[in-house]
């Protein structure tokens, strides 16, 4: 007798609406790629400034406006100049120098005995490190010093004051993304609360609330923003919270429209007929159905805020030096395109690619959450 294998059918597990949306999103290559790209940008912006060997505020006086390079600074041809500078500061004469491996051997002479403390002039230069006296002539007029060449990498080059552009770009990313999220969330929360209230209250309250939105719409937007800058000028976190507080108008309109239409849906009427309370309808039906459009609009709001922040910083109204953001960097880059185009190109690439990615994710989410709209 053979055992009859009893095949227990797998219970069919339905997928939730969110599961469906996620599956649709995963099929969208552009959106998924953008999502990974955004994660990458976020990770390198958050952790990058700690990993990059340069502080974003450190000024390398000897490396002003150095072009980006994969090989280390100082370049072999720059050593001569850096040495000449350092020796000039010692107020002695340059006799000769040569390089041995990683160290340079410098011989200087003077009409007066050379002070041992002069080694610090070599150490102070950004190009050298670990300087020591190798030998002295008996009368002390000639001194031979040796110094290690400090290898420093500036993959994105340096800016006008000799700061590493890579660490500045990453730091700027941190600020720009943080502001985008912060102000985006502020705008989103205000918009959702305002719009939902108007949509639910309906009638006269709705009328008045939406009329206020209309009036705010007709005010020149830039005026509002600039006034906020004038008020909160010194504190950029406060200022961007305020900027977020200006951007809620669209969200309020969208949420109100959704709330109005959801309230009239048959399933809500059915729930009402079955005696479900206001609270139950709100939690079970309205909020889950509102979430889709809110999520979609949030992904569009964040790039808007980032652009706005960059715009303000570009005009010199936003983030202030030495703190930095992509807008600040681009504005500096735009002023220096004649001789240092990397100052524009790197931050612009980071900003634009992030905006693209956010857009694709937003589009992907719209397709995923609202399949009717395709």
């Amino acid at each position: 007798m053979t055992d009859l294998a009893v095949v227990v059918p797998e219970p069919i597990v339905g997928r939730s609406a969110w599961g469906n949306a996620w599956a649709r999103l995963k099929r969208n290559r552009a959106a998924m790629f953008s999502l990974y790209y955004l994660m990458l940008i976020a990770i390198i912006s958050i952790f990058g400034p700690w990993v990059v060997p340069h502080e974003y505020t450190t000024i390398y006086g000897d490396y002003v406006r150095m072009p980006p390079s994969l090989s280390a600074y100082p370049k072999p041809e720059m050593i001569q100049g850096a040495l000449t500078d350092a020796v000039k500061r010692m107020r002695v004469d340059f006799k000769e120098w040569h390089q041995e491996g990683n160290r340079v051997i410098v011989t200087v002479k003077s009409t007066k005995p050379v002070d041992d403390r002069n080694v610090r002039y070599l150490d102070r230069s950004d190009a050298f490190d670990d300087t020591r006296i190798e030998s002295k002539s008996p009368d002390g007029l000639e001194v031979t010093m040796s110094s290690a060449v400090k290898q420093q990498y500036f993959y994105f080059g340096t800016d006008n004051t000799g700061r590493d552009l890579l660490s500045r770009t990453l730091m700027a990313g941190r600020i720009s993304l943080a502001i985008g999220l912060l102000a985006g969330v502020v705008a989103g929360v205000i918009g959702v609360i305002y719009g939902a209230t108007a949509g639910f209250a309906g009638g006269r309250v709705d009328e008045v609330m939406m009329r206020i939105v209309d009036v705010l719409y007709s005010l020149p937007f830039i005026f509002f923003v600039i006034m906020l800058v004038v008020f909160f000028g010194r504190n950029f976190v406060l200022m961007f919270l305020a900027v977020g507080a200006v951007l809620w108008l669209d969200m309020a309109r969208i949420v109100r429209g959704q709330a109005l239409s959801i309230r009239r849906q048959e399933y809500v009427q059915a729930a009402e007929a079955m005696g479900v309370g206001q609270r139950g309808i709100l939690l079970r039906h309205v909020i889950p159905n509102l979430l889709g459009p809110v999520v979609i609009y949030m992904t569009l709001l964040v790039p808007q805020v980032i652009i706005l922040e960059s715009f303000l910083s570009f005009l010199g109204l936003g983030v202030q030096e030495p703190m930095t953001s992509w807008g600040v960097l681009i504005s500096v880059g735009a002023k220096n395109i004649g001789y240092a185009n990397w100052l524009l190109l790197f931050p612009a690439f980071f900003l634009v690619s992030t905006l693209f990615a956010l857009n694709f994710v937003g589009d992907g989410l719209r397709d995923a959450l609202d399949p009717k709209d395709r």
Partner: protein
Amino acid sequence: MLRYVFRRLLTAIPTLFVIVTVAFFLIRVAPGGPFNQERGLSPEIKANLEAQFGLNDPLWLQYVHYLGNLLRGSFGPSYNLPDFTVTELFAKGLPISIQIGTSALILALLLGSILGTIAALNQNKLGDYSVIALATAGSTIPTFVIAPVIQLVFGLSWKLLPIGGWGDGALINKVGPVLTLALPQIAIVARLMRGSMIESLRSHHIRTARALGLSDWSVVVKHALRGAILPIVSFTGPAAAALLTGSIIVETIFSIPGVGRYFVDAALNRDYTLVMGTVVVIALFTIVFNLIVDVLYAVVDPRVRYD
């Protein structure tokens, strides 16, 4: 139609009034004043200046004065550029900003419509995808990135255009700023046009026209375009206003003596009259453009009637 225009202009008055009032009090409660920045201004001189401009009067009185002057068509003197009245500043800068703005708008409407139509006619083919890619790029890349890149490529590398400056309105000086202003708008127009053209090409009268054996050209240009153009028309109003504010960046980067930069500088220096002047001018433009658009709407679409 005339009655409609008249009624619209009447309803614009309260809107304008609210805007002027909000703006007036907003800029006044902002800390600082127009004569605070200047270094070495002795208290006596500052007091005299403030007395001369009536800044010591109670705020409501200043407000009434300002409204009165505004009704008489006077924006008052600029505080930070004391040799000029606000009206004179606008007389100098506004024509330049308008010239660049309208050129950009016309370029955007023409080029955007053409690109959108091309995309719609080649739906899901190479032409369509390239237009969509261009439109995505145009609406994603901010103006303050486009402008320096145009300077870098056309001005510095290829030496085709001057890097900046107005050059007394020489045509070559306008290319860069107009292009920068137009690009994002081209993107939006192309997108709108693509959508509405696809819709329009599906409609019954187009099928009839094709059945009657009309040429492709005639079907698209004479029949489909008319229906497809409506969203573009309604887009023109907000776009025109956006071009005025967009000019802030473009005028700064290309160093063009328009009105865009006045606003930022004036707000930062608390040049109250100049700020107010700019707000009123922008609001007026928005209102007038929206009105023009609504009237145009009735012209393009005979189903729309205003009575």
